[in-house]
């Protein structure tokens, strides 16, 4: 099958190129792809009591989703060549590649090939393994599409990001930000404030609310320990964008100190 495809492509090139010498022929490939990079935290590092070393996995998913169209410009190009191209377009294939790398883990993955004007949705997922909270890693993500005839037809710049699992301790202000019903149960969204020691303030992740079933008074969910998956452009001082992970509330009677939150300015 591969030999037949190669044969037909070679034949197509042989037909196109000498014919095209009479005029200028252009094959244009219009690509239209969405690239999405998502981060999440995996694992619950909180035990029955506060403290201890916290670790969790960082999950990165990269999706490239879209399609391309190919055409031969008819202006200045003999009709016979355009017809030949259109008749042989069925033998051209494209394939996506996704770059998904955390530190030295992962890299490029090649997706299944598809016809030149087919639609493709290709995703790769990468798990960092356990990271200590505050440990930063470099995340590189991107996508390319390669054409069997025209080579690289889609190659946007890669994204270079920093990632981390961020930990923040907060305190419950006792102010209800919202009240809502979830499957017949009343919940409160309590406004919370970061409670980090001066050396680690402001924390990279600054959660604003904590949801608790309404039967619990704010004092029973007074200290809130939480972790989040955070990313930023790979520049010192850039803001972190965080996706909250798990969090846990502790009773006020524990008198917990300000915590060493994750602080990587």
């Amino acid at each position, binding site marked *: 099958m591969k030999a037949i495809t190669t044969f037909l492509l070679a034949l197509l*090139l*042989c037909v196109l190129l000498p014919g*095209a010498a009479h005029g200028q022929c252009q094959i*244009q490939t219009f690509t239209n792809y*969405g690239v999405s990079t998502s981060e999440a935290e995996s694992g619950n590092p909180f035990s029955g009591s506060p403290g201890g070393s916290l670790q969790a996995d960082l999950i990165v998913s990269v999706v490239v989703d879209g399609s391309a169209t190919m055409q031969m410009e008819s202006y200045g190009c003999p009709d016979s060549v355009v017809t030949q191209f259109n*008749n042989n377009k069925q033998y051209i294939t494209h394939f996506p590649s996704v770059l998904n790398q955390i530190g030295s883990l992962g890299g490029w993955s090649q997706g299944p090939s598809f016809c030149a004007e*087919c639609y493709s949705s290709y995703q790769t997922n990468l798990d960092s393994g356990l990271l200590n909270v505050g440990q930063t890693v470099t995340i590189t993500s991107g996508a390319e599409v390669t054409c069997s005839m025209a080579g690289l037809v889609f190659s946007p710049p890669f994204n270079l990001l920093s990632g981390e699992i961020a930990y923040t301790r907060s305190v419950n202000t006792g102010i209800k930000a919202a009240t809502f019903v979830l499957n017949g149960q009343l919940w409160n969204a309590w406004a919370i404030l970061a409670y980090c020691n001066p050396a680690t303030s402001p924390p990279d992740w600054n959660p604003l609310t904590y949801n608790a079933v309404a039967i619990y008074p704010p004092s029973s969910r007074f200290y809130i320990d939480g972790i989040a998956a955070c990313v930023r452009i790979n520049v010192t001082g850039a803001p972190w964008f965080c996706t909250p992970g798990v969090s846990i509330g502790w009773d006020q009677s524990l008198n917990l100190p300000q915590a060493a939150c994750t602080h990587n300015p």
Partner: protein
Amino acid sequence: MIRYVAVLVLSVFALGTWAQTSSSHLHPDTVIDGAKNPELIPDSTALRLWLVTVSELPNATAQDRDRQRAHLSMLQLSELDNLQLVTLLANFKGQYLSLIDRYNESAKAALAHGGQPDLNLFLQQRDDLVQTTRAAIALRLSPESASRIDARVQEHKKHIQLHTQVHTMTVGGGQ
């Protein structure tokens, strides 16, 4: 054997001719970067890419399920809503992949006859599926859970880049 020799001869001839008479150029990328301009990412696109990212087929592996749990945990849904959402996501994934398969078959058939596939029709069907899934989320999950998903999708816009790129290959000696 004759076929392979023919492939070799034709390929060498084609590549030789190619090198003399063709040029290839990837034009600068036109990009909408959601990290800079999230308002320019359409809601439907953001929802579709989020659904694609977090959905798994019913026969997903334990590892796939763990990853899905990680992506959905930030929503802090009740057990019931989470179960409903996972079911809706499985339906979405199955239908999305099936829609793509059907379109790709029709595209191959159209190209085989020198024709063009109906991309616009496919894109309409794809977006309809996304809207149907959105409606099912609003119908089957509690309003609170549905609004959390909406908020998550808006947040997801910062993680999306929409690219359009043109590649030109000139053959026949002209530039």
